[in-house]
């Protein structure tokens, strides 16, 4: 029976592992044990993505040194931070601070997992659009760190001057195609199934087509859906024309648009700062300017703001707030984050210092006139239908006005009920 006793041993061993796994999945030690924390210092748990973690090393080091706090950084994929915070914060095991995008805020507030931050007078030191973006129902939820938006990038070899108007740009582009120097009049990357409302929004905005009405303080009003208004329907008509004329082409995905522009196949593309590195590597001489408006109003892009938010269940709210208001909001930190990710810093002083970088200055100038992407939870009901309807219009699957108004009615029904 030697064999059976070995089996028993193996069995107990496996059990030990199982229980260890359960215990590991458990919780930090009970509150009482925090008395054992190092004297004079707190602990701070921050969730952020890898880019920013690297950039912030110096600032966090300074913070640890000056306050005696131990900072634990948990690197997560940017997109998963929102869901993880939502599901884990209430258990008390979540982080003190997370890095997130401003358009998550509505959802996070609805779930009660982020706490407002009182920036005090420091709020005036940030770009107005960034504070506006981080504000939800009158309270600021986080310290803005970087600002990003799209703009028109043109290949200066094919188009030396910024276009005066949308028609001007299309005419130049088509002339280049006719002359054989380019293949596409303009490149806008969209998804063949879901279009890309984000990249097409500036064009929509220029027809006077906002998504939601705005309150006096600039925040969006979820009860005032504007997506079905007259300007938006005009945009739908224009989109159908562009689709038919192959100006907006459903086969050009974001990656293809980037690749083709880098290959010099088009004089113009509408894109963000994240693609510039590829263009530089490809040796394209480019210039950045505002997106020409096909409608009567300026073509304002959405501005996305990334910031540091405080968990409503933060075990160390005081240290966390000190870190946010004194260190993250400092010029040093904002510059470091900017250098780590090439996105314009939200702090005005750091933004001005970053003006020496022409790309940042140019994108920043376009973004300063942009509108913050809505951060209200009602946006969840908008994205899916918005994108699929746009692709139906681009591929000519029906009357654009009907498709668009049907979509607006459906979104209204979803939000209303």
């Amino acid at each position: 029976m030697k064999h059976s006793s070995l089996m028993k041993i193996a069995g107990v061993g496996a059990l030990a592992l199982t229980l260890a796994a359960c215990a590991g999945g458990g919780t930090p030690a009970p509150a009482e044990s925090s008395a054992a924390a190092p004297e004079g210092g707190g602990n701070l748990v921050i969730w952020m993505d890898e880019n920013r973690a690297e950039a912030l090393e110096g600032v966090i080091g300074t913070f640890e040194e000056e306050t005696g706090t131990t900072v634990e950084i948990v690197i997560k994929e940017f997109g998963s931070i929102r869901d993880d915070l939502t599901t884990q914060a209430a258990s008390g095991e979540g982080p003190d601070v997370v890095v997130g995008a401003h358009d998550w805020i509505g959802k996070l507030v609805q779930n009660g997992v982020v706490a407002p931050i009182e920036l005090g007078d420091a709020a005036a030191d940030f770009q107005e659009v960034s504070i506006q973006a981080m504000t939800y129902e009158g309270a600021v939820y986080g310290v803005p760190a970087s600002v990003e938006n799209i703009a028109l990038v043109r290949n200066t070899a094919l188009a030396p001057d910024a276009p005066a108007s949308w028609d001007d740009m299309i005419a130049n582009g088509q002339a280049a195609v006719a002359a054989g120097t380019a293949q596409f009049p303009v490149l806008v990357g969209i998804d063949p199934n879901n279009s890309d409302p984000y990249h097409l929004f500036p064009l929509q905005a220029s027809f006077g087509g906002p998504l939601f009405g705005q309150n006096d303080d600039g925040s969006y009003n979820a009860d005032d859906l504007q997506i079905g208004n007259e300007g938006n329907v005009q945009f739908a008509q224009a989109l159908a024309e562009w689709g038919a004329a192959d100006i907006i082409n459903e086969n050009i995905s974001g990656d293809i648009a980037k690749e083709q522009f880098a290959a010099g196949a088009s004089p113009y593309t509408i894109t963000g700062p994240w693609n510039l590195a590829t263009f530089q590597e490809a040796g394209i001489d480019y210039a950045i300017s505002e997106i020409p408006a096909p409608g009567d109003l300026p073509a304002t892009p959405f501005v996305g703001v990334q910031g540091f938010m405080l968990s409503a269940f933060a075990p160390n709210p005081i240290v966390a707030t000190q870190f946010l208001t004194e260190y993250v909001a400092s010029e040093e930190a904002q510059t470091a984050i900017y250098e780590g990710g090439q996105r314009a810093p939200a702090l005005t002083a750091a933004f001005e210092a970053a003006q020496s970088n022409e790309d940042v200055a140019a994108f920043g100038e376009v973004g300063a006139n942009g509108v913050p992407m809505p951060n209200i939870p009602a946006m969840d009901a908008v994205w899916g239908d918005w994108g699929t309807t746009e692709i139906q219009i681009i591929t000519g699957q029906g009357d654009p006005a009907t498709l668009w108004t049907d979509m607006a009615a459906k979104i209204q029904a979803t939000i209303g009920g």
Partner: protein
Amino acid sequence: MQPTSVRSTLIKIALLAVVDAIAVFAATVLFFQENWIVLGVLAVGTVIVNWVYLSPGLLPGKYLTPGLIFLAIFQVFVIVYTLFIAFTNYGDGHNSDKEDAIAAVVLQNTVRVEGSPAYRVTVVEGFEGLGLLATAPDGEVLVGSAEQPLAPLDPSAVTLNDDVAVAAEGWTALALDQLLQRQREIADLQVPFSDDLDDGFLRTTDARLGYQFQSTFVYDEAADTMTDTVNGVVYQDLGNGQFETTDGEVLGTGWQIFVGFDNFLKPFQEQRYGSALLGVLVWTFAFAILSVALCFVLGLFLAITFNDARMRSRKIYRIVMILPYAFPSFLAALVWLGLYNTQFGFINEVLFGSADIPWLSDPWLAKLSVLIVNVWLGFPYMFLVCLGALQSIPEELTEAATVDGANGWQVFQRIKFPLLLVSTAPLLIASFAFNFNNFNTIYLLTGGGPRILGVSENVGHTDLLITLVYKTAFEAGTGREYGLASALAIIIFIIIATISTIAFRQTKALEELN
């Protein structure tokens, strides 16, 4: 029975001791968390484990216990938890319990009084607990606690440091380590400006600066209502997991409650959903059956071909065959997405000479496209399985049949194929169940699209039940609805379980044939 050796007894005791030590540690943690249910389960589990391994008999128990515990944790618990979630409204806006929701609503609506000054504060402790020692911008020093409204202090009783009050008679300033340990308490501390609540309170979030805040939402514990002090609107708990007024106005943050069978009934109650669901159900069956059938036929054909001794360099071909299987399916789907691109894709550009075939945007072609990709992903598995099964069929059977005058086709049809089916049929059923829920291929390749026109719900021509569930529960409407998702997942589970049970019964009949 041979007595167990001393050594193995010692090892057994040592391992059991480790198990118990971990259990005791976990129990302590759970005790302080006041998590009684898990603690109870843990205690019972530990007692059973000790009993099983210490008592002399119970040999089957000694083998089975580890497995049963794994089963309980990774299967039973998951299923029970999914069931539990399916009966709740858990999702965006209903994230935690009522207590948290109340705290969240009050916190979200606690705003700084516009234009109020910033006070330099020091956290102090007095007889009635924590208090704030505040220095106003004009130099006035005030002190107060949660019970005692802020009152000016006599300058002679105050110790100043750089114009900021750091200590006062009757109050002890908190040392840094105390400050750090009592952070939540300090963050929750509200020192009223006067006995009148409307004057607001002083609050600090960083223990350095304090501001005058006002709460615009007040929770009335006795009446269980939330009142908006700005316009006097009263929100009540009407049993829907949120605060709402009688005319339907709701507060964003709610809490988790039991909703009974609501989630299960939703697909049947909403008509616009029902009709779309039927089409999707038919396509889901077609997709799963066709995928399995095509993969099996192709895999079997290749297996027979490469099992033939006359074939040269079989090994190399076999390795090439397995390659798609080694590819992660989500990556393969993205690569195929590129290949299918109408204008730039390899298929149209190279294979069809720059043709304009809309592989993914035409309803029928899109269905064909996902099938092709799925067969490409799935045939290597069937190839491997069939190859193994073929090789396990004794050669004597073929020889005997040949001697009896059967030709190649007859040998295959009458002898090899039925034998092959006995061992592969259960795998075919498993494969069917897998493809029934093949989320990756569909979602990454077409996202369910192209969308069906004329249906208000976001349903596409290639949507499977599982992608439709994902869209319904997570992408449409007002956000993530974990309760609804769980309920729909359970409905799908019931469908698959029924089909599999019937299919397995049929397989048994197959075995009896031989």
